[in-house]
């Protein structure tokens, strides 16, 4: 290009702001948290005033904290149930809706509402829907003889199940949208050829569409899995982790440790363990997405 001196200046002009921002909001905070994670520091307990305890926080957390492992297990179960159902439903709906019809754009926009409105509003809508005695869903379920004595969020299993169903309601449209983008980008020739040869819809799906969609399914499942592991807003609004700690996930566990119990030293250790785990996941995602050519090319 032009002379290198001005190119270098311009490059710094491009990258300078982002470097500065990352130092202020990522590098410095994480360093500070790392230091605090080696200390006994609590804003709620006067005896913990920042004494240096080396790796005690990490040893307690990873070695003997039942609540941490329980919330981790809840998170994994939540992901393992919600994401496959969302994938199956989303794919099914995408296959079925993948055709031209009047008002298609409006229909797709309406179907995206659960995904796009604020998760805290989603939580509130369902909390209102499921309120004991006057929540509209509770009323109709009562008429069918369900939940007459107890409420949905008072039982461990039903509360957890309700959160999963709400997650499915909220996020299935997201999978549908990705699958629809993939389906409409598939070359039509092999499908037409198979139709002429007398292949059934199932055969076309199983042997043509599914293999071609596979890279996209991987991306969708990873993104959704990552997001499901971070679920916070709806649980914060709907159960707060209860009853007891039946719906405590890692996000609510970390939130409670830091911002309810104000156990900052221990909480910093929790956060750094989670951040480290997420780096590993991010590396996997990065490899999947940028490792091979883009799964779908521009169409519309």
């Amino acid at each position, binding site marked *: 290009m*032009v002379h290198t001196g001005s*190119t270098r200046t311009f*490059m710094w002009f*491009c*990258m300078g*702001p*982002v470097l500065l921002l990352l130092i*202020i*909001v*990522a590098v410095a*905070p994480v360093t500070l*948290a790392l230091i*605090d994670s080696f200390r006994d520091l609590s804003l709620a307990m006067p005896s913990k005033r920042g004494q240096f305890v080396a790796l005690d926080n990490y040893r307690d957390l990873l070695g003997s904290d039942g609540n941490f492992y329980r919330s981790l297990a809840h998170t994994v179960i939540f992901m393992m149930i919600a994401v496959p159902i969302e994938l199956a439903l989303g794919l099914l*709906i995408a296959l079925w809706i993948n055709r031209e019809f009047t008002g298609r754009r*409006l*229909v*797709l*926009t*309406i179907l995206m*509402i659960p995904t796009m409105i*604020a998760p*805290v*509003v989603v939580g*509130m*809508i*369902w909390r*209102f*829907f499921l309120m004991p*005695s*006057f929540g*509209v869903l509770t009323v109709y379920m009562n008429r069918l003889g369900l939940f007459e004595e107890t409420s949905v969020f008072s039982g461990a299993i039903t509360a957890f199940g309700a959160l999963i169903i709400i997650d499915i*309601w909220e996020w299935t449209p*997201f999978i549908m949208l*990705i699958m*629809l983008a*993939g389906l409409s980008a598939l070359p039509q020739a092999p499908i037409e050829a198979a139709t002429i040869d007398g292949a059934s819809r199932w055969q076309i799906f199983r042997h043509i569409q599914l293999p071609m969609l596979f890279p996209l399914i991987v991306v*969708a499942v990873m993104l959704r899995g990552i997001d499901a592991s*971070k679920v*916070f*807003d709806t649980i914060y*609004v709907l159960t707060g982790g209860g009853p007891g700690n039946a719906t405590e996930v*890692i*996000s609510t566990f*970390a*939130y409670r440790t*830091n911002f309810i119990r104000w156990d*900052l030293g221990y909480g910093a250790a*929790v*956060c750094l363990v*989670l*951040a480290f*785990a*997420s780096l590993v996941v*991010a*590396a996997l*995602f*990065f490899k999947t997405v940028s490792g091979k050519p883009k*799964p779908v090319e521009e*169409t*519309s």
Partner: protein
Amino acid sequence: MTTGRSLFARQLVTFVVPLLVLLGVALIPYIWILLASFKTRGELISPDPKWVFNPTSINYTDIIYKGFDGYLLNSVIIGFSSTALCVFVGTLAAYGFSRFKIPAGNHLFFYILATRLGPPVAYALPMYLIFRDLGLVNTYAGVILAHTTFNLVLVVWMMRSFFDDVPREIEEAAYLDGCGHFRVFLQITLPMTYPGLAAVSIFVLIFSWNELLFALILTGGDTRPLTVMIPSLVLHTGTQWGQVASASIIQSIPVLIFIFFIQKKLVQGLTFGAVKG
């Protein structure tokens, strides 16, 4: 025309009816809260749910007494400021990544991605610690910086792909005419990405507008946005569901309007550019 009519009947059963069911499942919970926002307190907690009733606007006037306009203004301030900052920083970085070989660029790119993929709460505490030392907790600046960081990956990834789509020949012609980097970027390349830039900005705005966790931790008193206000209406002494409903409706209306406009870019935005629509 019997075949025509039977075809229509088949369409009705296999497509139109299931489509209406699907739309109902997606929309009825939202419609129910919309209806609730126009109901009186008695109707709201009645065990006999009414789909048709006499609407009242009392809930909308009630939330104004609770300082709703202040929270709304905070949401607007936080949303627009963090969008402006995020788009400025992210677009420059995206152009850098697209056009130059940045030293250790892949590591930087990866780090930007990692800030978004980890659980926000894992980054919220470190941010809280440093913002407390800097006196930025309970200010607009703290939460604006947090939202900017959180949405950076979206801007960088999407804008990078838009810049990659601009043919190099156009820039090279401008360089030959004697334009410098700044002029080529500002007057030639950037304007060609305006439609994409607009979509990206809307995404960032929606994500900031809808964000709860950072807002919960980093704002307080006079700087709280709507997403923090809405759950605070749930009280042990009894929740004013009419107010929750009307606040939720006003919070979500801008989002509904925006998603209609960015519908074509929705896939790309929701997957950080990993999938194109």
